[in-house]
């Protein structure tokens, strides 16, 4: 009996080993991965915009430097993820093209506006906090390049959530206006951060297959619960009120139970009707088009130099 590529793939998955770029893999596995890694990469890149919105207005030089370094990290993370996707036989150019033309998506969370400095704290604490919960789980994803990108990203992101929380800590110890600014930010960012984990498991179309392939290791609802359990006590320490009257601690299970998520809002944003959906893509496309002459010039120069060398 000959051992097929498929046998070896299934064996690798069963043994909790990593699948590597040149291995045989089912089409569906490759497609699912490309889609997920590309969406992840796009999210990092589009995610630079809401926070970038406050770099020029950061209240102190230290906060400005930290925020700039953080947004720069996001560019780096986008780069690592596009590289991981490229090992699957697609180019970054093509993926960016699909993003620019609306054929691939990024996380809905980045379609919300950053309206005050406190939003930068809330994004760090809640959005990065949610991302980290998810990304830690993804470090054990079955595709090698994706898993390695996650390890690198998790290591680098460990400061991101802390810097957000530290912004909020300063606000919590500050004036009435600062505490109001913080509360307003939490009111606006709490539910969208919970939505980041995706629809409930029962309605999640791809979860089952992705779990089988070990692309996904933990389900949406489990990750969401983990995030809520770790975040609520941190919020209590800040003295914020979560905008959820049903939020209660269940003594029996030891979990914080949340009220109903407004899935209509979630689906509306996924469908492209987020507050800033159009602006985010327009800004990205604008930067890309403005850079065309630079990219072309650099390519032309490289060709000239290599011709001169061979001449």
């Amino acid at each position, binding site marked *: 009996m000959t051992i097929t590529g498929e046998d070896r793939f299934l064996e690798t998955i069963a043994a909790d080993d990593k699948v590597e770029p040149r291995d045989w893999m089912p089409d569906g596995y490759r497609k699912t991965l490309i889609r997920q890694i590309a969406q992840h990469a796009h999210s990092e890149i589009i995610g630079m915009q809401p926070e970038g919105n406050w770099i020029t207005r950061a209240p102190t030089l230290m906060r400005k430097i930290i925020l700039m370094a953080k947004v720069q990290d996001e560019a780096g993370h986008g780069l690592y993820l596009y590289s991981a996707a490229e090992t699957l036989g697609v180019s970054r150019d*093509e993926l960016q093209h699909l993003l620019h033309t609306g054929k691939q998506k990024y996380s809905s969370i980045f379609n919300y506006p950053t309206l005050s400095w406190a939003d930068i704290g809330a994004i760090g604490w809640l959005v990065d906090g949610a991302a980290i919960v998810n990304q830690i789980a993804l470090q054990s994803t079955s595709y090698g390049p994706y898993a390695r990108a996650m390890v690198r990203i998790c290591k*680098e992101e460990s400061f991101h959530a802390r810097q957000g929380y530290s912004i909020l800590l300063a606000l919590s110890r500050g004036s009435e206006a600062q505490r109001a600014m913080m509360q307003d930010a939490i009111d606006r960012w709490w539910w969208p951060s919970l939505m980041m984990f*995706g629809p409930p498991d029962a309605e999640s179309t791809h979860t089952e297959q992705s779990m089988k392939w070990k692309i996904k290791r933990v389900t949406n609802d489990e990750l969401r619960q983990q995030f809520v359990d770790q975040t609520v006590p941190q919020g209590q320490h800040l003295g914020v009120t979560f905008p959820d009257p049903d939020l209660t601690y269940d003594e029996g299970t030891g979990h914080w139970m949340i009220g109903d998520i407004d899935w209509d809002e979630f689906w509306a944003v*996924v469908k492209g009707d987020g507050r800033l959906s159009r602006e985010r893509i327009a800004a990205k496309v604008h930067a890309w088009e403005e850079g065309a002459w630079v990219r072309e010039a650099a390519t032309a120069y490289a060709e000239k130099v290599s011709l001169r060398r061979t001449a």
Partner: protein
Amino acid sequence: MTYEVPEIPGEQTEDPTGHYEEHGWPLWEVFVRPKRGLNHSHAGSLHAPDAEAAVQNARDAYTRRAEGISVWVVPSTAIYASDDSEAMFEPFEDRPYRHPTFYDIPEEVGQM
């Protein structure tokens, strides 16, 4: 999942074909030496128009937390990789005599 956007029922999605006409800069593999005495090891890849740009980009992308003291960049197309790991590498798994643990040395002989 955090960065996974669910499909909308009935949505027309487009998967990348892998045959998109390339306009972009070529891909380079980046190798970083973390400190003196250690080998350069593969850190990741990036796009750059030429080797000088690739070295600079590698510095900015892969050493911004002081992860290295030297970088190599190699055009990804210059990497020639092995295939068929079964034929190439599995035969070596069956040569226990190459490993020191294969040999029993009496304790009284001491460290060897």
